[in-house]
Every structure is written in C-alpha cells, then in structure tokens.
C-alpha cells in the first residue's frame, strides 16, 4: 500500500497528535473544528463556486456539462525556507526552457553539441517549422509556465511535467484563496501567508513588457479565448477581468497588412499583445490546421512580422513534450552551466531497447505514460491496475514503444484532507506558476495544489475525480502576526 509509507506534509511521518513542529497550530485547528462545521463551510464554498460559474466542462461527459471542481478546506503549507529553495529551482528551469526554445528555433547549438538526438526534434510533431527563425521580444517564448511538482519527503521535490504551452489553473489558485479568506479567516491569523492576489498585475506587467518594438509605450493587451463553451472559459474571463483588459474571441480579431485589430464599437483598434488560450493547431487556419474554425487567419504572419506578441509563443510544445522531458537535466546543464536544482523523476524511454525490456518486465510497479497524452488519459498506474489492464497496456507499448515513457511509482506526499470518514491523508501534487517578461522570471508565492480524493489514489486530475486545495506560502517561520490596534497615549 503506497499511502502507508508516504510522507505527510503536515503530520510528517507522525500522526495527528504528533505533527511537524511548524504545523502544530494547523493540526489543532483540524482537531478542534467539528466535522459538521467543515461540512457547512464546504457547502458554502460549493454554492459560491456554482453561483459564480466557476465550472469546467468534462469532455465526453454529456450528463454534467458544467461541473465544479471539489474544494478542500485544509490548506497545504510551504515554509518560507522550503519555498525559497523551490523558487530557485523553478527559475532555473524556466530560464533553461526559454533558452532551449530560443536555440531550437534558432541556431540549434544543442544539436551541434550532440546533447539531444536530432530525430527527437525533427520527427516530433510538436516541433513547428513555422516559427523557426522568429525572435520574439526579449527572446521570451514561455512567458507563463506551470511546472508540475511532486514531493516524496521534506526536501525531496521532483518535476513531473513542464507546461510551457497554455498552463491553466491559476484562477483556482486565486478563487481558492478568496474562499479560504472568507471561510477560514482564523488560519490567516495563525499563519503569515504570502498574498497571491497580485498575480493579475504581475501578468499584465509581463504582457506589457514584451510588447512589439515601437509599441512599448502603451500596448493594447487582450486575452484570446476560443469562446464561452470552452472548458476553461471561466479562467479566461476571470483573468481578463482582473487585468482590466478585453476578452476577445477569434471573430473579434482581424488581420490587415500583418497587423492585428479588434472590432470595437468605435471601429478597428490595433492589438499588440495577445495572451491566447487557443492551442497552436487552431490558432491560424492559414498556417496550422486549415479546418480550424477557432482561428484568426493571418495572425501568424503578423507574429512573424513582429507586429504582435503571442503569449505563449507558438511552438513551445517542443519544450514540454514528455519525450524531451527525460533530457531536461542535460538541457538545464547545457544552458545554465549548473546542475538542475529540481530533479526529474527517473524516466525510462521505451524508445531505447534496454529501457523497453525493463519496462515490460516491471509494468506492475511502474507508471507508464503516452508521451503526447495529458489530463490523466493514456496512462497506466501499475500497482493500482488489474492483470488485464496491464496486459492490454503491454500490447500497446510493444506495438509503438517510441510513444511511451515509464516512471517508478513514487510515494507521493499526502496532505490531511476532509473526507466522509473524517480528516485523512490524501495524495497531492503541485503546480506553481512562473512568469517571464523583460526581466528576471517571477514565481507567484502560491499555486495550484491538486488532491486525489479517493483513498490511496495517485491520479489528481480534475477530469478523474481530483480536487483542489489552497496552497499557503509562509512569509517567515516566526511567530504569528499580532493584530494591529490603535495606539493609545501620546506618541505623535
């Protein structure tokens, strides 16, 4: 049983009565709060989420076309010191990702140095020749990165996956915090928690800093959504709203003479920076999929001409591809000259015969993934699968080994979570968000903690029964904040 030997982030390897010293306050809060009270607060949170329309659509699920993601009240907490070390690792990794993209669509030094097998790039469907040779402003390609992390011990963090295309989930980070401030204000008196609500300003600042040459003074920034039937529409509208910029749909945009305009009541207004939440494939029917009804014809020509900045840049998929992932330690070393501060999870590339043999022999112990799968689909968790499931998956891997990688089943850390049978440990992962503009990458002090609500389950995806938690980053590890009060007496 995996759960029994996992590290719990609050209880450590102890028990509810013997938590990690820094978290004794949280542990007593959990013990002193009645489960009826938890239930009541959870219902209140759910009602709010539904009324606000914080929903996501589950593809292929006709019954509930708009669902809310279950929310848990027990926060996950990072100590200030843990967070500092994590941030350094994240910044290093994101710098390497941007340098890699700039290189692979430019001089390709990394191939000349023999670090990566060239066919891994040139035969990769994520490699977009359409953007080769482009120099985006300040050489930034991945302006918004979400790096998925897992933890196995106090100081043991691993990168599970990089997301350099259109990482989602940041609205949950912000809304979960709003819910916690409203429902559990007592925790914020107990802990000094770094605020996350500056994220929209940071994002807007990042967008403005990468405006096209000549448009830096007062660039017009917009969020581009596929439309209000998209599963992440709430997030798109939330971000546009909190930045105070327009949320546009493809039909609102028009490209003329390589310049992008939006249709407004006063006529056409030039657009300079687009945070697009449409995948590369659908972005421009003239360049990518011609059958795309979502795209903006000509937008790629405008991008190539340097008249508009796209966030994130098209072509980024080559950096977060699961086949490239296994080379990330080498990539970090090549571009930063340092060892990766955040290690990868050990990865077996089934494209290599030795690794394939090992994977086929040990499937019952491994997590096997499609290199181009996502959202928990196309994945086998060996220890949690039946003989038949393993046999079926084995056939698939044998047929096309180059499409698969395998990783050991990690003892993912747990965080106490409210369940039907009281507070119990549940496995979590973590997605922090890193913004890169003109200057140094910035890490938002928080992120999205996803939790597998089923006992023992390691699958945290919202489409597969996962939930979310707020993620506290503590400002320092000292005493609780004193509440301020009006000073008495006469000191001026």
């Amino acid at each position, binding site marked *: 049983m995996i759960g029994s030997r996992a590290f719990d982030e609050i209880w450590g390897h102890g028990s509810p009565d013997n938590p990690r010293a820094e978290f004794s306050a949280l542990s007593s809060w959990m013990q002193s709060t009645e489960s009826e009270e938890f239930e009541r607060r959870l219902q209140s949170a759910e009602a709010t989420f539904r009324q606000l*329309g914080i929903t996501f659509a589950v593809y292929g699920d006709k019954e509930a076309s708009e669902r809310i993601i279950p929310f848990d009240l027990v926060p996950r907490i990072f100590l200030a010191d843990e967070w500092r070390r994590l941030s350094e690792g994240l910044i290093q990794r994101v710098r390497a990702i941007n340098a890699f993209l700039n290189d692979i669509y430019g001089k390709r030094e990394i191939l000349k140095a023999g670090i990566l097998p060239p066919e891994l790039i040139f035969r990769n469907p994520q490699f977009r020749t359409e953007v080769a040779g482009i120099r985006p402003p300040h050489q930034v390609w991945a302006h918004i990165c979400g790096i998925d992390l897992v933890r196995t011990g106090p100081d043991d963090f691993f990168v599970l996956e990089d997301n350099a295309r259109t990482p989602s989930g940041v609205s949950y980070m912000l809304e979960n915090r709003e819910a916690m401030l409203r429902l559990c204000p007592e925790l914020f008196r107990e802990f000094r928690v770094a605020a996350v609500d500056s994220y929209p300003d940071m994002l807007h600042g990042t967008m403005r800093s990468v405006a096209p040459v000549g448009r830096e003074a007062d660039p017009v920034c917009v969020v581009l959504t596929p439309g209000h039937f998209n599963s992440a529409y709430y997030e798109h509208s939330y971000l546009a709203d909190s930045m105070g910029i327009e949320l546009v749909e493809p039909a609102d945009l028009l490209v003329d003479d390589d310049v992008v305009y939006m249709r407004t*009541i006063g006529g056409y207004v030039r657009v300079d920076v687009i945070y697009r939440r449409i995948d590369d494939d659908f972005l421009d029917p003239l360049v990518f999929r011609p059958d795309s009804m979502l795209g903006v014809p000509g937008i790629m020509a405008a991008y190539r001409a340097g008249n508009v900045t796209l966030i994130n840049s098209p072509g980024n998929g080559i950096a977060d591809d699961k086949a490239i992932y296994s080379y990330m330690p080498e990539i970090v070393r090549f571009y930063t000259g340092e060892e990766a501060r955040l290690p990868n999870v050990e990865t077996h590339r089934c494209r290599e015969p030795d690794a394939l043999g090992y994977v086929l022999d040990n499937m019952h112990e491994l997590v096997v993934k499609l290199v181009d799968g996502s959202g928990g689909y196309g994945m086998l968790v060996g220890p949690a699968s039946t003989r038949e499931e393993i046999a079926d998956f084995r056939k698939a891997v044998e047929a096309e080994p180059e499409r698969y990688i395998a990783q050991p089943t990690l003892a993912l850390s747990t965080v106490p979570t409210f369940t039907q049978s009281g507070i119990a440990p549940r496995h979590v992962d973590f997605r922090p968000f890193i913004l890169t503009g003109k200057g140094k990458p910035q890490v938002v002090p928080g992120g999205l903690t996803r939790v597998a609500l089923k006992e023992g389950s390691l699958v945290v995806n919202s489409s597969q029964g996962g939930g979310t938690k707020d993620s506290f980053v503590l400002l320092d590890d000292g005493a609780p904040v004193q509440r301020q009060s009006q000073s008495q007496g006469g000191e001026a």
Partner: protein
Amino acid sequence: MAVMLSRTASSLYWLGRYTERADFIARLIEATVRLDALSARPAGDDAWRSALIVTYNEDAFAETGESFTQENVSRFMTVDSAHPGSIIECLRMARNNARAVRTALTREAWTAINRAWLQFQSMGEPGGNTATLNLVELVKAEMRGFEGALHRMMKNEATWFIRLGGAIERADNTARLIDVKYHLLLPEGEQVGGIVDRDQWTTILQTVSAVTAYRWLYREGLNPGAVIELLMTRPELPRSLAACVDECVEVLAMLGKRTGLQGEADRMARARLARMQKTRAHEVIVAGLHEYLQAFIRENAMLDAAIARQFRFV
C-alpha cells in the same frame, strides 16, 4: 475614448432585451392566470389565446398540436425549452449573452442571471395556477435582483447598452400588449370607449404593473380611453410608450457622451420623442389605434437596426 468590443456591446444589448422579455412574459402569465381565475364569466381559452397573440406565439403553439388549456399554454410559455419564446429560453439566451461578456458585468449582475437560470433549470412542469404563479414570482424576483445589481454597476457604457436593450424591448412589448388586448376586448359593434369587462382591463394594467398608478392618475374609475392614454403617452409610467421612447433618447445620449459615437440612431430616437410629445391618445384612437401601434412597432425595429449599425454590432 472608451473602447468596447462590438460583440460585447451587442451581447449586453441583447442581455437587456432578453431579461426584459422574460420579465414581460412572466407578468403577462400572471395577469392571465388572474383573469382566468377571477372573472365572473370564465375567460378561459380566450384569455390564454390572447396571451399567445401578444407574444406572437399563436402559430408556434398551434404547431405543437396540443389542446388549448391553461396547463398546456402556461407550460409552453414558461418551461418549454423547445420553444424560443418561453421564459426558460429567454433566460438561457440572457445567460449565454451574460456569460460571453462576463468581464463587462459585476459579479452581482452575473450571479443574478446565473441564479435565475439555475433555479429555472430545476423546475418541472408548472401544473396548475398556483404552481404557475410561484414560477412567475420567482422570475420576477430574480429580474428585480438583476435590475438592482445593474443600478450598482459602474455608470459606464456596459450599463447603458443593457438599459438600451431593455428600453427597446419594453417599447415593443407594451405596444403589442395594447394592440392585441384592445382589439380582442372590444366587442363587435361596440364603440371605442364603451363599457367592457373591467376585469379584462385590469389584466392589461397588471401586466405592466400599473393598477395603482392608474388609480392615482384617473379618479373616475376604469375607462378604456384612459388606460390607453396611460400606457401610451404618460411619461410617469415606466412601461408606457412615452417613457420607453424617452429612455432611448436619454441612454443613447449617455452612450454618446462616453463613446463619442452619435448618429442615425440618436436622430431617429429624438425625432420619435418629439412626435410622442405631441401625440394625444384620444386623437390616435379616433384616427386608428391599430395602425398607429403597428407603425410604432415597425419604427422601433428600425431603431433597433440603426443602433446595431451605429455601434457595429457583429
């Protein structure tokens, strides 16, 4: 100059139209239920038939092949999602428009619309009169909540577009209401201004929440000519044609001030207001009320088209 996407402006305008329409249908059903229940001589089929005619839905109902009963018609007008003129469909369209312009609405305004839609989703058949009235009460309460939220929104172009849609829709609804009811209620051979069933006139006033207003303004008791005058030319009554015509001019002026965009729609709206101010109800009745109202509805539709051109609705 303020910048707003054309699509956003169009969605806000239609959000205003659909919420107003949902509210109007709810009031019409409420008044019809009362008419059906309270009349000494049961109004029955005719009352429900006229409710369908007012909302231009007589043919659509006939196509369902269902019989003309209170249950069938009220279900058709409230929860029938196959029918674009039902309350639930108006709410769905209002919500779709609101969802597409989330960024232009406050949380309060969005929540009111979303909640109305969520509540209606869980409603079954309206059944008898009591159940229908409960349903109608719910719509009215949510629409009041939306109006309240609207008044607390920033006084910017988003608010003005919603109000403009509301004013255009209200003008259309009131004109149809007078037109249909007036002619249905006028018995064959009866002179205009003659004595007709007072309950039926009360129905009209109730639909536009004007029963009390009428009593304050006209002490002499129910008189069809006075009802027509109240609904047409009295600017004190928020749902009168005069009030709607006035609101269109006012809201277009606010939009002009915010956006710098003025044109054909402003000119049409101002010309209509100038004519309305000279209009006397009794003269219209003599000259032909039906012709007047049909022309009003046509002109209102032309103003709608001019607004769409002026603000480049997609």
